[in-house]
C-alpha cells in the first residue's frame, strides 16, 4: 500500500479533524450561553448558525477540489489533515512545491520518497504555524493597539498585502511559462476560462458564481490539459 494513504496517516487526519470539531463545539456552546445571558434572541443565534453552515458549503467544495489537486502528489490523508486546520490550499500548494523544489523536483508530481514527503509536511507545518503563537501571546495587546493602527496608512497596508500575493502568483506564473508548451496551454486555458466567467458574472450579475470561479477554471484547465496531452 502507498505509505501516503496508510492507516496511520488517516488516523492523524482523524485526530486533527476531531480536535477542530471539539474546539468549535466548545466555543459554540460558550458563545450560545453568553449570548443568552446578554439577551440576544436565541432565534437570531440559531439563524446565524444555520446560515453560516449553508454559506460554507460552496467554499468547502472549492477546498475539496484543492484537496483533490494536492492528493495526486501527497495522497489523500495529508491534504485532508492540512486543509482541515489553519492554512488554506493557496498556502499548502506553494509550501509543498517549495519543499519538493529543494529536492530538485520541479512542479509537484507524485511524491514516492517518504523523506521528501516528511520534508513537505515540515515545510507546510512551519510555514503556517506563527499565528498559533502570535495570538495566544499578543492578542490582548493587539486589541489595545488596533485602534491606533487603524489610523495608519490603510491604503498602503492593503496595497502591500496585494503586492505580496502578486509576487507569489508571478513566481508561479513564471514557472508555468517555463514549464513547456503543455504547461503554457494549461495556464492560458485557466486564465481564459476565468476571464469568461468574470464577464458572465458581470453581465448576468451572477454573484453566486464567484465562489466557484477558481475551482471551475482550475478543473476546466486540468481537463483541457488532458486533451492537449493527447493532441500534442
Amino acid at each position, binding site marked *: 500500500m502507498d505509505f501516503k494513504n496508510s492507516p496511520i496517516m488517516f488516523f492523524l487526519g482523524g485526530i486533527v479533524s476531531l480536535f477542530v470539531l471539539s474546539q468549535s463545539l466548545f466555543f459554540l456552546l460558550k458563545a450560545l450561553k453568553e449570548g443568552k445571558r446578554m439577551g440576544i434572541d436565541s432565534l437570531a443565534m440559531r439563524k446565524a448558525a444555520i446560515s453560516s453552515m449553508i454559506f460554507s458549503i460552496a467554499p468547502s467544495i472549492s477546498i475539496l477540489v484543492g484537496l483533490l489537486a494536492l492528493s495526486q502528489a501527497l495522497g489523500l490523508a495529508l491534504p485532508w489533515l492540512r486543509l482541515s486546520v*489553519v492554512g488554506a490550499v493557496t498556502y499548502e500548494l506553494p509550501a509543498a512545491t517549495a519543499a519538493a523544489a529543494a529536492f530538485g523536483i520541479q512542479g509537484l508530481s507524485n511524491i514516492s520518497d517518504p523523506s521528501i514527503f516528511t520534508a513537505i509536511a515540515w515545510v507546510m507545518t512551519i510555514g503556517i504555524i506563527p499565528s498559533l503563537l502570535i495570538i495566544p501571546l499578543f492578542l490582548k495587546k493587539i486589541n489595545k493597539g488596533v485602534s491606533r493602527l487603524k489610523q495608519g496608512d490603510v491604503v498602503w497596508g492593503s496595497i502591500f498585502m496585494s503586492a505580496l500575493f502578486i509576487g507569489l502568483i508571478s513566481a508561479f506564473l513564471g514557472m508555468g511559462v517555463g514549464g513547456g508548451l503543455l504547461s503554457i496551454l494549461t495556464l492560458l486555458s485557466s486564465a481564459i476560462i476565468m476571464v469568461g466567467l468574470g464577464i458572465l458574472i458581470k453581465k448576468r450579475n451572477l454573484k453566486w458564481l464567484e465562489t466557484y470561479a477558481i475551482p471551475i477554471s482550475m478543473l476546466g484547465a486540468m481537463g483541457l490539459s488532458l486533451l492537449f496531452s493527447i493532441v500534442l
Partner: protein
Amino acid sequence: MKNKRTYEESVHYYGRIWMLSAFVLLMAIPVIIGVAFSAWPPLDKVLLGLLGVVPMFWTVAVIEVLTFSPMLGNGGTYLGFVTGNLTNMKVPCALNAMKGAGVEPGSPEGEIISTIAIASSTFTNTIVLTLGVLLLVPLTPILSSPTFKPMFDNILPALFGGLGVAFIAKDWKVATLPLGVMILLYILAPTLPVGILIPVSAAIAISWARFLYKKGHLHRTHDNKKGDL
C-alpha cells in the same frame, strides 16, 4: 472556581489553551510521520524549502492577525485561526452572519455571532472534507493511472492561471514588473527553484508597488481590495 471570570477573560484563558494545544498537535504531526516511515529529511533541504515560503507566509500571518482579529472578535480569532481557511471562508462567513443579525463587528453582540458563525462554518467544512475523502478513497487507483498524469502534472498552471487573472486584474500596474521579471527568468532558466523565487518576486512586487504608490499611480480605497486569495 472562586473568582468567576468574565466571558472575555474566559475566552482568552481557554482560547490560549486550545491554541497552544493546536500548536503542539500540529508540530507533532511531521515528527510522527518521520517516526512512522523512518524518514528524516536532511535539515538543509527542509531549510531550503522553508526559505521559499517562510518570509512571505510569516509576514502574511502577522498582517492577517492584525486585520482579522478586530473583525472576528476574540472568540472568533482563537477559533478561526486554528480552524483555518480564513480569507476564503471563515472571514466572509462571519461578516455575513453579523450583517444578517444586524450586529457590528467588534461589538459584544458581534463577538457572539462571529464565534457562532465560525464554529458552524467549521462543522460544514470538516463534514464536507471528510465525506469527500471517504468518497475519493475508492477512486484513488483510477486517479493515479498514467492516463490522468498530465492532468495532475499541470495543477499549478491550472490554479495560477485563473488566480492570476483574478488577482492581476485588481492591480495590474503592480503586477507588470514582478510578472515580467519572473517570466523572463523562467524562459532563460526553466529549472529555477520556485521556492527561492517567491521571496524575490514578492520583494520586487512590494518595492514596485511602493514606488507606484509614492508616485501617485495607485488610487483606490482599501474596501474589498484586500490582498485575500
